[in-house]
Structures are given as C-alpha cells and as structure tokens.
C-alpha cells in the first residue's frame, strides 16, 4: 500500500458542500444511501507509541457497526481518523457514498459540544445557510426537543444536550455518522431512551453508523456488527443477527454479551500474563 500521510478526499468530506445540503428537512432517505467505509492497513502513532497497527476494516453501506474495547485501545483514534480529524502514517481510508462520491461525515463527540452562547436552534443550524431554519426546527422535532428551541444549552440536561447534538448532525444529512461514546456521561435510563432514538433516526435516514463505546450491551443493542479493538487492531468480529428492537436481558443477547465480554476481558488477562513474565 502506498503511504499517504493524509487522504485529501477524507478531509474534503468534512467541508459540507452547499450543493449537497438539502434543506427540505425531510428524513425520507432509505437504506442503501449510507456511505461505505474502507480502511486498509492503517497505521497511526502518537510519537513513539503506535496506536493503530495494520488495521483493515470494511463497513457496509447503511450498516451499524460498534467498536468496543478497553480505554486506550485505539477505538476513538480509529473513529477520529475516519472523521478526518487525525493524520496517519500509512494505509488508506475511504468513505464513499452510493454515487461513488466523497461522502458527508458527521461526528458526535463524547461531550455535546454545543456553543453555549447560541440558542438551541442556532446550535442545530450551525454551518448552515439562513434558509435552514425550518429544517432545523424539523430536526429538533425529530429528537423531541422542538419546545426548547429558544433555550440556552446551559438550561438543558445532559441527555437533552446530546439530543441537540444529534439533531445538529442530522441537519447535514450525513452519509456516515460517527458516534464517539456520546452516551458515556448519561444515566442508565436516559441511555436507553437515547438508544431508541439513535436506532430510529438511523433506520429513517439510512446512514452508515460507527459507534465507539465501552458498554458491550449498548453495542449489542444497537449494532449489526460488534468489533473488539485491542492493541491497535481488530481482535474479534461478532455479527449480531437479532431482530430489532432488541430486548435487554433476553437469552440470545445475554449469550452474545458474555462472548464479546470474554474477548474484551481476555485481552486484559493476556496482557497481565505478558507483564508478569
């Protein structure tokens, strides 16, 4: 593979081209419109430390893939590379929409990252032309926060802020939505609500979703495919072929959970052995 320091296509994908932005606010896009992600022999390090080594990954259009692993395993770095926020030393990363063009990518961060000096509705339509007001309203309605449009972000709860961040991402009609532990700081009940919401907008909008989480159950409830990342590579690949909406605590889900967990924890045990000897 040729060593390209930074794929220019991916960086381009971060700048929304106005022509691509549809301001109708409709969420009628169907499956198959999502982007295909193709990562080949990716290598990324911070100084001396190699975070991702020789990692290859193909994500099908419109699928929901979850990346789980311990902290520091490189899963967030992988997501940031896909978002074009990180440079890398080797490999190729392409995010391609259905018409073989560079796809729009949006990222939901661990924190909501709302601008505190803008009202909720203005946060939702950040980076959009003025005419996008009605689309922003529609996006807020979609996440159930239409009545909070005029409020300041400081007046919202953590879950509501993440819902606003989701609406903001949906405004741009991304072909690929990256979720970097967006629910990590929320309480259990709010998380479950958010799971339902994320699953719904994913189904309605048909984008490809890549979720980073350390909660194995969350990964199994949402994703078609769960990848365990360890030591900068993919340690385990589990297809989740269960009907949606999935029921927490059901037998097949519990079985999958213990299997994936064993791989997440197994990597710990292996590491400890290496440290000991």
């Amino acid at each position: 593979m040729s060593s390209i320091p930074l794929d220019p296509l991916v960086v381009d994908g971060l700048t929304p081209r106005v022509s691509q932005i549809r301001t109708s606010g409709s969420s009628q896009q169907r499956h198959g419109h999502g982007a295909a992600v193709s990562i080949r022999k990716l290598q990324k390090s911070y100084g001396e430390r190699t975070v991702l080594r020789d990692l290859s990954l193909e994500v099908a259009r419109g699928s929901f893939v979850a990346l789980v692993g311990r902290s520091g395993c490189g899963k967030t770095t992988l997501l940031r590379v896909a978002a074009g926020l990180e440079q890398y030393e080797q490999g190729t990363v392409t995010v391609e929409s259905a018409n073989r063009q560079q796809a729009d990518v949006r990222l939901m961060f661990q924190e909501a990252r709302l601008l505190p000096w803008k009202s909720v509705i203005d946060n939702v339509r950040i980076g959009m032309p003025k005419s996008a007001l009605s689309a922003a309203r529609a996006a807020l309605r979609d996440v159930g926060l239409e009545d909070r449009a005029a409020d300041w972000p400081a007046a919202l709860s953590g879950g509501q802020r993440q819902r606003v961040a989701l609406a903001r991402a949906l405004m741009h009609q991304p072909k690929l939505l990256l979720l970097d532990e967006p629910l990590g700081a929320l309480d259990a009940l709010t998380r479950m609500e958010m799971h339902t919401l994320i699953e719904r907008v994913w189904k309605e909008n048909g984008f490809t979703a890549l979720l980073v989480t350390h909660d194995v159950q969350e990964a199994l409830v949402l994703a078609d495919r769960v990848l365990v990342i360890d030591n900068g590579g993919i340690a385990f690949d589990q297809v989740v072929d269960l009907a949606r909406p999935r029921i927490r605590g059901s037998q097949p889900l519990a079985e999958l959970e213990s299997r994936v967990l064993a791989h997440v924890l197994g990597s710990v045990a292996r590491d400890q052995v290496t440290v000991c000897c």
Partner: protein
Amino acid sequence: MVRSQQFRAVVRRAVPWLVPILIFAAWEYAARTGLLSARVLPEPWAVLKAAWHLLQTGELQSNLKISAGRAFAGLVVGGGLGLLLGLLTGLSRRAEVALDTTVQMLRNVPPLAMIPLVILWFGIDEGAKLFLVALGVFFPLYLNTFHGIRSVDRGLIEMARSYGLSGASLYRHVILPGALPSILVGLRYSLGLMWVLLIVAETISSSSGIGYMTMNAREFLQTDVVLVGILMYALLGKLADVATKRLERLCLRWHPSYQ
C-alpha cells in the same frame, strides 16, 4: 405570613444602607459639637450645600462633563488599541511572537511612572491626560483579550471546523463569543484604572475637570468642595461599574451565572 415576608424583604434591602447612615450620623454629630474641625472635615450638610451651590452655578456639571469626556476618550483610544492588538496576537502565532514580549515588558512599567516623560512630550494640555488614561487602560484589555482568545475551548473549535465553519465565520460564531467573558473582565479592570489615572492627570495640572475643581478648592481651603469632588469620583466610578455590569448581563445572557 405574607406580611412577615414583605417585612423581611424590606429589612434585607435596608441593611446595606445601615452602616453608611450611621457613619453620616456620627459625622454630623462630631461636626456639630465641634469635635471635628470644619477645616478637617466639614459637616455633611455643608458638603450638600456646596454641591447644590456648584450645581446652581453650573460649575459641577461642566467639570463633570469634561472629566467624563477625557476618561472615555482615553478608554476608547487605549482600550480600542488593546482590544485590537489582543485580537491580533491571540489569533496569530506570528503576531504573538513578534509583539507579546514587548507588550509584557512595557506592561510592568507603572503608567504613573511615565508622568515626567508625558509632561515633557505633551506639556500639560489635553494630550497628556489622554495619553496617561489610554496607556493605563490598554494593558488590562490587551491581556484579557489575548488570554480570552487562547482559552476558547479547543473542542468547540474542532466541532465548528468539522461542521464547516472556517475563517471569518469561525471567529464570529465561536472564537469571539468564547473570548467575550474574558474581554469584559478586562474592560472592568480598565474602568477602575481609568478613574485612578484621570484623577492623577487632572490634579497634576489642568484648568478644568473634577480634579482641577478639587485642587483649586484646596488652595482656598474649601474642604467642602474638595469633598464634593471626591464624592463625584466615587459616583462616576460606581456608574461605570453599573454600566459594565449591564453590558455583561446583556452580552453574557447565555452564561449560567447570569440566568
């Protein structure tokens, strides 16, 4: 129940004024009984009368106007430059490397130490006063603008970039609003310094303004007029403070501490 609540509200409003009223009463008493010589401190009533007299002759208003004009001219010139330069060094590493060391060196020179030089440069007319005030208010605004821009949350900038904001719109929607709380702190510091420097500049030499009025009154042992002048400074300082607080409330409506 309601009545006792109202009573409590009245008491809460009245308490802050209790101490000043007591001080005034003691002062009046001491002056009347001759404990306090009128030359040291005239009775409050005499100060009020002097103020009324100065108001009637129009002397107080015209001097107030001149002093306030000087103060704000200095604030606009010095503060404006501080803001611009702070924006420049805050936004551009190159400008920071080129300018910041110089500004930090100059900052440590107390503006009042410049008085001899200022008199040599500008003589004793308006230019000298304007320069002193402008010099004093420049640094707080410069430092806080610079610091404010540099401490804008990196995460927000990253988010805005990934949502397609760049260049002017990034500054307008993210960087400047993020730096605004710090800039306003700088403005409040500047306003405090503004009055200090104006008083000094006006008492050195001038033929108008509150400072001139008090120095002139001192020549004629009019302690009551001197006190009127001092009270005017207190009043102007308070007014400036209230104005900035209003401005903060207006600009930082989004901030949780103003809701």
